[in-house]
């Protein structure tokens, strides 16, 4: 009886301690994996999570991703530019026609001057708004874009260093900020304290390292994407268990990257786990350096056939999809490769025997991996499982385990560099929604260090031709077909050991309705309705 009284007292106290009832405004509270609120300078840091939460929310690009479907591959659609064409006489010039009537949150017009101002902030060294940090966040994502000039109030010409059909995709990474807002302080760090874009969400408040609050932009130029929730609160929470606890205790409505070991508990407490394969690949990038065993295509194909991807997916609690290439079958860039990546250990052994390896002469490979890292999923257990699977076909794997930062530095220097410690493969996961990221930087022979991350030193004229074809083919469907041919050749060459695609698990409360998880790194928060 006494215990009952105590419990009753405790619950009464709990009522008193409970947070006050939500105000009339509907609020969506999201726990991000970033350690800080991504930069609000108009060019976010924190990788693509930054673009997801402080890029496409506050700002628009000339082009944008279609995030409206969970089934179809996400494609490029008009953003602040209504249409674009390549200059028929000069394939290094693009003409972008801007949308009439689009306005920044401060009421100023989005026009050609504003667009050119934003190109100049990262490309024109003598422009007052040029900023090294913004450059770092942007130029690697639009490597051929050289500059822009105004043709008339609603027309802008964009120049590139070479013919490049990837430009409309690359330009989703250049966010258009209000020049008038920047002019108040002429300093991007100051601008970041009260950023002004033209996106579907408007800035309300930033508490550095703690939270960013946004409110709906009722005057957004795309009436269909005026947010259905009044406010969004974005909270950085790098620790996965802290995010889970905050969700379970009712402090959040949504968490990014729900850890696989918490999924059962979250589901049992009524939270929904959403997931959908998106353009992400978790591979081993293989060395083509002469003298390395992986320079032999038979070895590379054998490695691809030795991996039981279903077991890896099981290890990840089902939140991954087996990879058959850099993009999945059905994707516009799939291209029907002749080599089928699947689990076939017998064929793997046969190929290794043809390459001169067998019980008497085991194949030894060294792989550089990380302990953790953004997009790396669960690198240690995944790699250890692969090590066991490869041993079954006679491949002995030695790991060179590095911290995430060092792995990146090794990625940049390439397999030939003495500092790469003789590694034959490197495990860096990557985004594949942009063809430069998915293909060009890995296969183009010019992209070896220090220019980019052709880590494996692929020097194959066929790859060069296919990359140049894809870059130089300007019709949407024709370009996709050219990319398909490039992808098919990459799979046939097995330049990577393709393992899985992430499915981006998120945990959301039942109060969140209307969310469509697009097959994309970015997600649209505008259709969400809070119940």
């Amino acid at each position, binding site marked *: 009886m006494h215990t009952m009284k105590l419990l009753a007292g*405790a619950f009464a*106290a*709990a009522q008193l*301690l*409970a*947070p*006050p009832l939500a105000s009339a405004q509907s609020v969506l509270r999201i726990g991000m994996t970033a*350690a*800080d609120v991504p*930069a609000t*300078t108009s060019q976010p*840091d924190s*990788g693509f999570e930054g673009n997801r939460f402080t890029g496409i929310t506050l700002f628009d690009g000339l082009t944008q991703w279609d995030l409206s479907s969970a089934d179809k591959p996400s494609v490029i659609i008009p953003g602040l530019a209504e249409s674009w064409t390549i200059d028929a006489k000069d394939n290094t010039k693009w003409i972008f026609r801007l949308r009439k009537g689009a306005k920044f949150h401060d009421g100023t017009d989005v026009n050609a001057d504003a667009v050119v101002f934003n190109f100049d902030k990262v490309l024109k060294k003598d422009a007052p708004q040029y900023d*090294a*940090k913004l*450059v*770092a*966040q942007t*130029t*690697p*994502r639009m490597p051929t874009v050289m500059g822009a000039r105004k043709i008339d109030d609603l027309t802008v010409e964009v120049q590139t260093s070479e013919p490049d059909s990837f430009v409309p995709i690359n330009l989703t990474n250049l966010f258009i900020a209000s020049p008038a807002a920047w002019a108040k302080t002429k300093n*991007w*760090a100051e601008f*970041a304290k009260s950023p002004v874009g033209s996106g579907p969400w408007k800035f309300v408040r930033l*508490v*550095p*390292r*703690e*939270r960013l609050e946004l409110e709906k932009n009722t005057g957004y130029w795309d009436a269909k994407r005026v947010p259905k929730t009044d406010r969004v609160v974005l*909270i950085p*929470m*790098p*620790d996965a*268990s*802290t995010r889970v*606890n*905050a969700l*379970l*205790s*009712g*402090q959040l409505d949504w968490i990014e990257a729900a850890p696989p070991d918490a999924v059962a508990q979250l589901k049992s407490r009524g939270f929904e786990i959403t997931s959908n394969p998106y353009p992400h690949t978790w591979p081993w990038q293989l060395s083509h350096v002469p003298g390395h065993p992986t320079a032999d295509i038979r070895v590379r194909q054998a490695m691809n056939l030795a991996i039981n991807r279903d077991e890896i997916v099981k290890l990840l609690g089902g939140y991954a999809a087996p990879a058959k290439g850099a993009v999945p079958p059905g994707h516009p860039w799939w291209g029907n490769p002749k080599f089928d990546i699947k689990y076939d250990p017998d064929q793997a052994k046969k190929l290794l025997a043809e390459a001169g390896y067998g019980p008497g002469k085991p194949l030894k490979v060294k792989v550089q991996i990380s302990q953790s890292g*953004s997009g790396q999923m669960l690198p240690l257990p995944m790699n250890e499982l692969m090590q066991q699977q490869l041993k079954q076909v006679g491949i002995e794997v030695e790991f060179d385990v*590095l*911290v*995430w*930062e*060092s792995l*990146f*530095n090794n990625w*940049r*220097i390439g397999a030939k560099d003495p500092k790469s410690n003789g590694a034959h493969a490197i495990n*860096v996961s990557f985004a594949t929604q942009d063809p430069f*990221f998915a293909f060009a*930087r890995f296969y183009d022979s010019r992209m070896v*260090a*220090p*220019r*980019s*991350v052709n880590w494996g030193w692929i020097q194959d004229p066929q790859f060069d031709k296919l990359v140049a074809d894809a870059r130089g083919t300007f019709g949407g469907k024709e370009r996709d077909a050219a990319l398909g041919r490039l992808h098919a050749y990459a799979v046939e060459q097995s330049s990577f050991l393709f393992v899985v695609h992430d499915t981006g698990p998120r945990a959301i409360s039942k109060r969140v309705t209307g969310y469509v998880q697009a097959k994309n790194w970015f997600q649209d928060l505008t259709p969400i309705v809070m119940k």
Partner: protein
Amino acid sequence: MLLYLVRRLLYVIPIGLAVSAICFSLVFLAPGDPLSAVLPADASLELIEKLKADYGFDRPIPVQFGKWVARAVQGDLGISIATGRPVNSELARAISNTFVLAFFACSFGFTLGLVLGFIAGYWNGTWLDKVVTSLAVAGVSVPHYWLGMVLVIIFSVFFNWLPATGMGAGGSSEWAWDWEHLQFVILPAVTLSVIPTAIITRTVRALVADILSREFVTALIAKGLSDRGVFWHVVKNAAPTALAVMGIQLGYLLGGSILVETVFAWPGTGFLLSVAIFQRDLPLLQGTILFLALFFVFLNLLVDMVQTLLDPRIRRT
């Protein structure tokens, strides 16, 4: 006394320089580089070299260090590479947040530690002493980040009585000393106070037991001094050492705890330090460590001075 104070204050200069130099070297020895904070993963080696030049990281390390020290002595700790915000303002905000947490952890931990220590010391050897000592041993042994997680699971996740993370619905900028905000400090403060409570309990217990066994106490009792009078003598004799221990514990608490502040997403100096380490944000890391090092030096000085005031024997030596 003045000479002693001046001498102790002068010690701050070599200590500050040594701490800064070690910290500076460690950051450069560690994998990654100070530009990791601003560079996306896909940045090429070419761009990294260009940015190194832009930020001045291509210059020799002693030159970089010299420039930093020259600015630091003028009170300018530089600009965070990751955020572009002044380190001074980042640090000021974090210090005030850690102060809130340390205030509650001290209030709770010191009070409980003193009470338990006196109880165990006065009733030395009894079952009461054994219970208190066992609790104290458990207190110093339990990893506090683990305890934090357990408390969150019980009080936030299971019962939903107290919030799990943060400093309130509006963040630290809207902190107020009302219940709506104070409830956020309870779990981290209790977690953080466990170790100081246990240390103070054990120290005070040993001190009290020792003092009670001294001849002067027997003499005081024989003289017919009341229990209260004897207690007062015990307090006075235990105070300098207890105060020194509390001072050091206060220092630890004010220094912020990386683990506890991370578990509770409490935006204090510990959290700031952990972010700075992971982002390799060199100016932020340098500034935070320098501040914490100098803070400890001054705190030790303060404790020494208070001890001297309380115990004339120290002054004589």
